[in-house]
């Protein structure tokens, strides 16, 4: 019975999508969708990125908000991002995993799932944009933001596990909605109200973010790349963004509505492989041009502090680096806490240690490799159209490995797909937090999600990027504000655990026990 129902709803979803595209007139659909959405997108982006001038550059408040928090967390937890780095690795490796809990979600699995939601287009397209607009120096600030972001992830994910909901059937659900409402309620009666408001705000923005950065941005950039490898403007696909959108929406629909988990499962196995191929190709190009590396690093360092010809000078460079790092690793945004909450552990803080690796791998490793390739190959150029994010990275790889754009296209499509699957999950969790769990609310959300895939493929990059950024960054306001009240909770968890760890009271298992 359930099967038949889901079958029906897929058909319904695809029909609805088709009907939502005005009469399938061949050209102009993209332009019309873009035209009708753009004013709203611009208005939302304008509001979220309200900025104030610093040294002649307009700095969005939200960016200061994120970086300030990450820096504060780094100091408050006495450089947890460095001192727990080794222990985090031991946890991921399974040194402390009780064999009797085999079969439950491990630290590695929670981290891998969260990573597949963040490693993706931000690392490929976003970095290209940062280096183009901010010059090589943006890389320096990007890495710094990645290192500080580790502390933000530590706090979020610890709270995510601590205040998650565990249902009687054993399934778990966690994330900022829960720690904001439950955590603040625990502090005091007055904060209870604030917590509830923050949780609702977060959930609203999270739904928006799932339509924006987790969806439209992905659809848009993967379509752009597909067009560019099939011949650019001359490509048959060039004006058929809506068609691409419908196809992707149908595939995503099969997974999220049709419950065809097989597709998602296969993707989740291929995506890590694509990430490895991407990083390997990047490293190969770096090695091929080893003589250029010192100069590249020199330009990264010097560019970070003296920016000639970059809009806004040093502050402008810093802004580009920080912005792209935050968009790529989502530290402080709260999304990852949803994915990390599924882990099996009795000590919430352990997942915080593991989460340190997320911004590290995402930003400090993968983004830096992309940036180095772009700088070494000299593909970055302030006069290059920055809205060509993926295309720029693609050109950088192509200049050394001529056939790589095709591989990159496959990687981009898969990254986009897996990020959409992850974000549809994050968005749905937030949606059901707002509207309750029922088949109808479920299907309504999923249909909206599919609809935005089509919209995202049809719009111009500029407005998509602005709207996506806006929605994702908006999540940081309620999330971080709530976290400030919960810092003592995390500190207590950390101190208790750390003294046990230092005293050797934590039990190691398996090979790790023999090593000790």
């Amino acid at each position, binding site marked *: 019975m359930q099967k038949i129902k889901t079958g029906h709803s897929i058909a319904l979803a695809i029909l609805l999508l088709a009907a939502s595209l005005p009469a399938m007139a061949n050209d102009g659909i993209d332009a019309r969708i873009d035209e009708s959405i753009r004013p709203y997108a611009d208005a939302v982006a304008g509001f979220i990125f309200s900025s104030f001038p610093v040294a002649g550059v307009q700095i969005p408040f939200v960016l200061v908000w994120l970086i300030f928090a990450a820096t504060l967390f780094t100091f408050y937890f006495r450089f947890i991002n460095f001192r727990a780095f080794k222990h985090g690795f031991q946890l991921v490796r399974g040194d402390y995993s009780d064999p009797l809990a085999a079969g439950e979600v491990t630290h590695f699995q929670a981290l891998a799932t969260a990573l597949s939601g963040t490693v993706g287009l931000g690392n490929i397209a976003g970095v290209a944009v940062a280096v183009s607009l901010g010059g090589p120096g943006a890389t320096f600030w990007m890495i710094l933001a990645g290192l500080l972001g580790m502390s933000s992830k530590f706090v979020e994910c610890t709270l995510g596990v601590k205040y998650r909901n565990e249902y009687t059937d*054993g399934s778990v659900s966690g994330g900022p909605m829960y720690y904001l409402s439950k955590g603040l309620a625990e502090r005091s009666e007055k904060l209870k109200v604030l917590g509830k408001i923050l949780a609702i705000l977060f959930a609203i923005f999270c739904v928006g973010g799932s339509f924006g950065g987790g969806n439209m941005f992905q659809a848009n950039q993967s379509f752009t790349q597909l067009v560019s490898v099939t011949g650019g403007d001359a490509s048959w696909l060039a004006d058929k963004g809506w068609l691409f959108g419908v196809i992707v929406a149908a595939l995503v629909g099969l997974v999220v509505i049709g419950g065809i988990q097989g597709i998602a499962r296969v993707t*989740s196995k291929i995506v890590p492989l694509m990430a490895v191929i991407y990083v390997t190709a990047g490293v190969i190009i770096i090695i091929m041009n080893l003589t250029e590396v010192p100069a590249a690093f020199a330009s990264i360092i010097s560019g970070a502090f003296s920016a000639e010809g970059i809009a806004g000078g040093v502050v402008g460079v810093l802004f580009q680096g920080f912005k792209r790092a935050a968009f790529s690793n989502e530290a402080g945004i709260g999304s990852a806490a949803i994915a990390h909450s599924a882990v099996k552990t009795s000590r919430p803080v352990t997942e915080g240690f593991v989460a340190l690796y997320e911004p590290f791998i995402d930003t400090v490793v993968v983004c830096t490799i992309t940036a180095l390739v772009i700088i070494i190959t000299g593909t970055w150029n302030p006069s290059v159209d920055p809205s060509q994010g993926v295309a720029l990275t693609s050109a950088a790889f192509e200049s050394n490995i001529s056939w790589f754009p095709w591989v990159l296209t496959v990687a981009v499509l898969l990254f986009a797909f897996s990020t959409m699957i992850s974000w549809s*999950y994050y968005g749905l969790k937030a949606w059901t937090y707002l509207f309750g769990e029922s088949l109808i609310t479920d299907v309504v959300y999923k249909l909206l999600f599919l609809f935005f895939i089509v919209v995202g493929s049809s719009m111009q990059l500029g407005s998509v990027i602005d709207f996506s950024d806006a929605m994702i960054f908006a999540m940081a306001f309620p999330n971080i504000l709530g976290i400030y009240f919960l810092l003592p909770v995390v500190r207590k968890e950390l101190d208790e655990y750390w003294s046990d760890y230092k005293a050797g009271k934590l039990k190691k298992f398996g090979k790790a026990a023999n090593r000790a």
Partner: protein
Amino acid sequence: MSKVLLVGVDCSKCSNRALQYAADRAEVSKVQLIVTHVIDWSPFSFNTPQENEERHKRREAELDRAHKEIIDPIVSELREKSIFARGVIRHGHPAETLSGVAEEFGATNIIIGKTGSSKIKTQLFGSVANTLVQISKVPVTIVP
């Protein structure tokens, strides 16, 4: 001195022969027989968030199924023959887990059947029997 034997079962025909062999030996020498079933699972797999959310539920279902369909019937049959049998179900890498359970219960011999996979497949992926022979700290008996 009480001895313990361990037999790995996965419900295939091969492991039935292994089980028969183990039961005969346990009956003759009056030793405890640990009947072990390993549910293939890796702590380093890549999952979707949906899979992670439902993992605990799935795990319970897998354990329940393994109990009802594999281990419980075998153990009760063995006990009817007055063999001192005990069932163990674990998640993990089959060979490593069998070796671990053997160590845990102090088994002096591990008995398993051959999986009967093709030569090419074994060449590519190895087999439980081959791996077990390499890593086990106690003698392994492979029943053809």
